[in-house]
């Protein structure tokens, strides 16, 4: 054991209040495990937003459809990285695929992930882009032409019948995709919700709360990216689209808040053995991240902003400014939600007699910088994806491929 680690743990020992089991001094799931549900939440939320266009025919949202799909893909590609980096023995990760323990919720990760990536997202992206890839591959020269042709898997059929099949396939995949997105993130909630040893986690509402907050964060992220992209490209923002998405966002935040409030009231009213220590937890350790960041800045203020933007009949620029502010605050709030669940659940002793402390590393593989890199990486991937796969459908006068 390194002297730095011993030193670090000794310092934490002095910050303990009350009694904790001696092995509890080391916090096991660090900032990276906060990043993981945050990222998968964005994936599920963005995909569900995209699905609204195809399954429920919400035409207003068409301008964000492809962006939402690519966002989901970019974040999904990064989702396993925090888990992998967090493992004590990352070189053994394949064991989880080769010899999964069927009673373990975590063992299902590889299968849920693989299904969602290959059975849903990549398929849908491919059918959505197939025609455009063929058109672009025929129009361009050099490397990029080859990339596009390869991505289309060298298909060449752009006949009306083939395109009709594409549309049908996308619809079918989306219909399967919505429950899959629910599965992906509900499952992450289940990993926490099923831990009976931990009263802060062990709740049947956990998967549902995770899901709802995922939808909130995914929608907010797509709005953010759509507005940023329009600003970078110096294009006008489609206001009906923006107004519609922000309405969905508004209702999603309300449902999310109601569920969390229900969870809170339920715990308070049932007042089980753990209620005292959980009360101490939220007032001593999570006051800033729960009451201020998650609830006030992440929910109440954005809700207020959205109300003002919708009912005060502001002009376009005013609405855009307010929407943009709201989605950034919401992102902050959802990240705090993940923090409060993951870190909060490890700051009180299972003896219900004491509170621990968490000191985040800055450097190091489980530190702050690693988390920042992991959070930035999907945006880099998305930038590359957008280069290769245009977010707007090619117009029809494109020449037929040679």
């Amino acid at each position, binding site marked *: *054991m*390194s002297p730095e*680690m*011993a030193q670090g*743990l000794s310092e934490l*020992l*002095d910050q*303990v209040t*009350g*009694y*904790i*089991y*001696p*092995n*509890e*001094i*080391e916090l*096991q*799931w660090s900032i990276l495990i906060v990043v993981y549900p945050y990222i998968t939440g964005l994936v599920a939320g963005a995909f569900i937003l995209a699905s609204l266009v195809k399954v429920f025919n919400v035409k207003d949202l068409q301008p964000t459809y492809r962006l939402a799909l690519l966002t989901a893909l970019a974040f999904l590609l990064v989702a396993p990285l925090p*888990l992998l980096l*967090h*493992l*004590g*023995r*990352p070189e*053994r*990760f394949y*064991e*989880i695929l080769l*010899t*999964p*323990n069927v*009673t*373990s*919720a*975590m*063992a299902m*990760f590889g299968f849920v992930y693989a299904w969602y990536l290959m059975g849903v997202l990549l398929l849908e992206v491919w059918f959505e882009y197939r025609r455009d890839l063929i058109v672009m591959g025929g129009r361009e020269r050099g490397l990029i032409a080859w990339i596009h042709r390869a991505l289309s898997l060298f298909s060449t059929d752009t006949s009306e019948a083939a395109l009709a099949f594409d549309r049908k396939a996308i619809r079918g995949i989306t219909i399967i995709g919505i429950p899959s997105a629910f599965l992906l993130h509900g499952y992450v909630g289940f*990993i926490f919700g*099923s*831990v*009976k*040893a*931990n009263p802060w986690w062990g709740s049947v509402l956990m998967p549902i709360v995770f899901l709802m907050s995922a939808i909130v964060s995914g929608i907010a992220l797509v709005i953010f990216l759509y507005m940023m992209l329009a600003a970078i490209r110096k294009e006008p923002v489609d206001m009906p689209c923006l107004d519609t998405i922000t309405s969905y966002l508004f209702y999603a935040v309300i449902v999310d808040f109601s569920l969390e409030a229900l969870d809170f009231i339920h715990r308070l009213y049932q007042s089980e053995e753990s209620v005292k220590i959980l009360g101490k937890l939220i007032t001593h350790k999570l006051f800033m991240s729960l009451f201020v960041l998650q609830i006030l800045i992440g929910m109440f203020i954005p809700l207020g902003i959205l109300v003002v933007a919708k009912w005060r009949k502001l002009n376009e620029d005013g609405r855009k400014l307010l929407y943009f502010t709201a989605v950034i605050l919401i992102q902050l709030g959802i990240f705090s939600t993940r923090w409060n669940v993951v870190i909060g659940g*490890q700051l009180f*002793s*299972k*003896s*219900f*007699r004491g509170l621990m402390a968490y000191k985040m590393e800055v450097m190091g593989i489980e530190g702050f910088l690693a988390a920042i890199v992991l959070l930035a990486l999907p945006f880099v991937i998305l930038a590359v994806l957008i280069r290769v796969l245009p977010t707007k459908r090619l117009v029809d006068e494109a020449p037929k491929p040679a």
Partner: protein
Amino acid sequence: MNKRDFLKGLILFFPAGGVLGALARELDAKETVPAQTGTAGTAPKPGPKAYDPKSHYYGMGIEIDKCIGCNRCVEACKAENNVLQEPFFFRTWIERYVIKKDGDVVVESISVKSKASKETSQDDSDVLRTFFVPKLCNHCVHPPCVQVCPVGATFATEDGVVLIDSKRCIGCRYCIQACPYGARYLDPRTKTADKCSFCYHRVRQGLLPACVEVCPTQARIFGDLRSKASRLVRFARMNKIHVLKPSLNTEPKVYYAQLDGEVR
């Protein structure tokens, strides 16, 4: 002796014979774990038959009133199992409970020497009762750690011991989160989960776990629940026993006698 007395005698003789016979069978039952008084030096005779895990089911009994908080079990455990000496990693530890007259409960792990736990001269007048509680992995019948391990690296043996295969463990630490008793930690040397193994390497050879072996007051009783003659079964028969956090339905196999309701 007349006929009447003889018949009376017969009525008594047959049931008494049945009772004696049953007792004799009981005596015949083998005690699989050597007597607790045996010292570490006495080597066990290797059994004539190979070890059959199916015929054992291990557990531990702890008599709270006998524990004097000497911490020898903790030291023996660390030495026997090469547990890190730093006070953050324990396969077993001792808690001291001080219950005040006003209902306040002060708990400390006497195995951890932190600033706060330095001996303070307590005013005895406000103390209602005080006692020590040895803690360790409960080797649950329904172990949540085994349920959640994604790769099956932690498992329950047929003879009722929950073990970790450190060559398979990927260090995800889900088991540490799932354990309600704080019995597990991540060994920083191997980056894999670690915890009490009931000294399985010793038990397989007919020896006692190190903590049981060194306990000067015999507060810890180790035994085989499948053997009627085992000390553990006798302990369970002679005491009113309780387990930790029974509401979680983990069914611990570490049984406490004289356990106080304040202990969690």
